[in-house]
């Protein structure tokens, strides 16, 4: 695999620590992220809608449409980009208390549905407690998914397994702790 360095992205300025500043800081960070992704996906809009002509091996020219199929990132990065809580799975709607039970037959995430919920709640003009609860169990922060609304991107499929962090530095580390305790 080749990794090319194209740009260095801006780091938002850091504010002094206080509870009020923290909220502002979070807002600034989210806005920066949003702006950066607008920038990255700027050329994406036209190509996905109109297609690009690409030479084929048989001498014909075909109209091709790029599809974003994966985004390699670790768990925290994925959580930030997808606008979910760090304990939530980015692929399916598994509730936090079933993470360690081996259950893997949950529905895949559907961000369009979440957006619909959000709009319905807004039209009611008050965030009911039920909605808050369901957001909590689903582990989503609405309106913060940077991939939402882009053409030819299926957000739940973007997550790529990450052997380094999930297995070697994640599970293995936990396992070593258990073994140390056990011995």
């Amino acid at each position, binding site marked *: 695999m080749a990794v090319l360095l194209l740009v*260095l992205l801006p780091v938002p300025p850091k504010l002094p620590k206080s509870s009020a500043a923290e909220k502002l800081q979070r807002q600034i960070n989210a806005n920066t992220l949003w702006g950066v992704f607008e920038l990255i996906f700027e050329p994406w809009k036209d190509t996905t809608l109109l297609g690009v002509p690409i030479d084929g091996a048989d001498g014909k020219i075909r109209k091709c449409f790029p599809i974003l199929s994966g985004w390699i990132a670790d768990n925290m990065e994925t959580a930030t980009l997808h606008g979910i809580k760090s304990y939530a799975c980015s692929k399916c709607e598994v509730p936090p208390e079933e993470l*360690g*039970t*081996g259950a893997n037959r949950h529905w895949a995430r559907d961000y369009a549905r979440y957006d619909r919920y959000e709009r319905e709640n807004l039209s009611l003009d008050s965030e009911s407690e039920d909605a808050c609860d369901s957001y909590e169990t689903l582990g989503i922060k609405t309106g913060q998914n940077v991939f939402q609304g882009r053409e030819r991107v299926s957000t739940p499929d973007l997550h*790529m397994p990450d052997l380094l962090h999930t297995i*070697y530095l994640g599970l293995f580390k936990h396992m070593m702790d258990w*073994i140390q305790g*056990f011995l």
Partner: protein
Amino acid sequence: MPGKAYREVTQWQEKEMRNLGRCLLGVLAVALRQPDNSQIHPFKRALTCVRLLYDFTMMAQYRSHTAETIQYMEDHPERFHEMKDIFLEFKVSKRMQAKADELRRELRPQRTLLNQSVAKSTRKRRRILEQDREEENDQRMALINAESHFNFVKMHLISHLGDHIYQFGNIPMFSTEYGDLAHKEQIKDGYRPSHTNNPARQILSSYGRQHAFRIRLLNLEFLQRSRADLAAEVVEHLGETLTAPSAPPVYCRMLKGHRKDVRGVADFGRALKVSPETICREFIRYSRLSLLLGRRILEDPAILRSLPIELLRQLKIPVLAFQELNVYDIQRARCIGDGLFRNQASRNDSV
């Protein structure tokens, strides 16, 4: 073979962790080899758990899969979930620990008050104390059993790996390792020689330049190999920078570690602390058992002793790497005699 105890290392890298995994199961099996009657069951469960998880990680590294291996990858975590209770009591988060400590701190003053009023003799007081301690332990265990869990996101993410293979192919392809390494190579190494004042542009141009040079060199190398017309100074320069076109390495067993001070049977015996008679006897036995008729050595100790002898202490054995056709891992078989392994004292740490 790690050079340090597990706890001495604070930050682990992927490769180190992988190597650790290689010896982990063996070491654990040795550590748990002599269980008491009460320990047989938990030891077995712990070993199985570790084995299941480790097998799973090994299979996650495969470069190609069959339906069978993917089935294994789905079954192993399932079986692990059946057995994992054995580790539940060690899966205690810091918050839980604090909670348990707090509970104990709350109860202790009450108990002391109570005990002072009840118990008069020291023996009685001691017995009550012991009872209290047992009670405390029970409470702690109950709390842990009720509150501890394996619900962390990494435990869940592995359940998606099977589907991922069906969808996208093998897993090592998508590792974040490359990106994380590129951070060091492309950004940190670019930042260091910059004058740190608004360094973004410098980092980018420094990496861009290096990259362009590397591509240019590769192109020139290719042209030279395909016998294109290149200017004399270019050829000369290439001759300096080119990493000599290495012949494909030969993969055969290689002997290494030649001892210069060993010339004959007497030296040989001294180096290995074996008497020359035994060596001669073994030589003759070996020649009778394993060598062809015409190639057998003369079975006369006097002649044998005068023969020149070399002592080599290491054998490099190339082993074909898993699922590869031309990548070899070199395994080294070493004879260290009665010396210490890597001249280090033997270790006695459990982990």
